[in-house]
């Protein structure tokens, strides 16, 4: 959608912007993966929420209104002049669902990064994308010294739909992180080919 006020300008056509989310628990390597493929150092942006926007805390009787700052790291990859891919790390604190909704709106898909030592940390991300019908894959970040599980074991532990790809990666490595994104893109393409209904997230 172009805003009406933009009409009448003779400027060039703006590029197509595509958004992919990188989710997972705290310290799992989301920003590392973004940095491994981004053409710039990951940037940080913030959203300020009043506590009323945060679903968990009960503020009954608390008269002073406070605010919370939620930070998101993101990176960018340009492909020529007409296509740009943005990678957004989701905020680590899973209670900021308002921010997740905003990030997920218009996203092509998501990568859930998992650490097999703390597999439960990625449950909220998997739940979120399943509930909102946003296609995702799971990428197991292979930390040094981490106990390795087979991909089937991870799939079973996360109770994933059989169609959801699970892959190994090293988020520090550019080639490996590229492969993760390609796997996601192929998965989204395949899902669309199968005529999977896709709903607007947040509606």
């Amino acid at each position, binding site marked *: 959608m172009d805003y009406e006020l933009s009409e009448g300008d003779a400027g060039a056509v*703006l590029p197509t912007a*595509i*958004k992919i989310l990188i989710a997972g628990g705290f310290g799992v390597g989301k920003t590392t993966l973004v940095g491994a493929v981004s053409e710039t150092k990951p940037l940080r942006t*913030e959203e300020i929420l009043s506590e009323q926007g945060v679903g968990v805390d009960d503020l009954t009787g608390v008269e002073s209104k406070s605010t919370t700052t939620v930070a*998101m790291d993101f990176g960018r990859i340009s*492909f020529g002049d007409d296509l740009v891919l943005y990678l957004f790390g989701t905020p680590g604190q899973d209670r900021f669902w308002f921010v997740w909704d905003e990030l997920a709106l218009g996203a092509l898909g998501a990568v859930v990064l998992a650490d097999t030592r703390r597999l439960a940390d990625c449950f909220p991300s998997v739940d979120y994308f399943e509930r909102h019908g946003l296609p995702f894959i799971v990428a197991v970040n292979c930390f040094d010294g981490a106990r390795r599980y087979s991909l089937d074991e991870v799939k079973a532990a996360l109770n994933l739909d059989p169609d959801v790809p699970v892959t190994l990666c090293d988020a520090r490595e550019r080639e490996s992180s590229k492969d993760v994104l390609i796997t996601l893109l192929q998965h989204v393409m395949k899902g669309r080919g199968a005529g999977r209904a896709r709903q607007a997230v947040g509606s």
Partner: protein
Amino acid sequence: MTPSDTESLWVDDDAGPVVRPYAMTRGRAAARNRYNVISLVMATTRVAPSLEVGIGPEHVHIVNLCQRPLALAEVAAHLSLPLGTVRVLLDDLLARRLVRVTEPAPTNLPDDSVFEALINGLRAL
């Protein structure tokens, strides 16, 4: 704690922004338009607007930055301002036709050519 200790604690960024975000937006908390974090912003003019009522240094900064298309999140990151503040500033700039803003399609998936361009582009990185 001596006064000099107190002074050394709160210098530069540690002291927080000198001008609060709500001052830049003249008290407005919410933007009229719902911009996506990847809404692309591009200036319609190469000439920075002059400061006047309703146009502050941050507006000028955005016009200067967006001589090439930048996502809302990039604008916010470069200005070190919260996304919500930049959304309000974009309303002002749009009303004066100083920027163009495009939204990504919220529901429609791009066609195959976009997927192929992304996949081939990533492989070539």
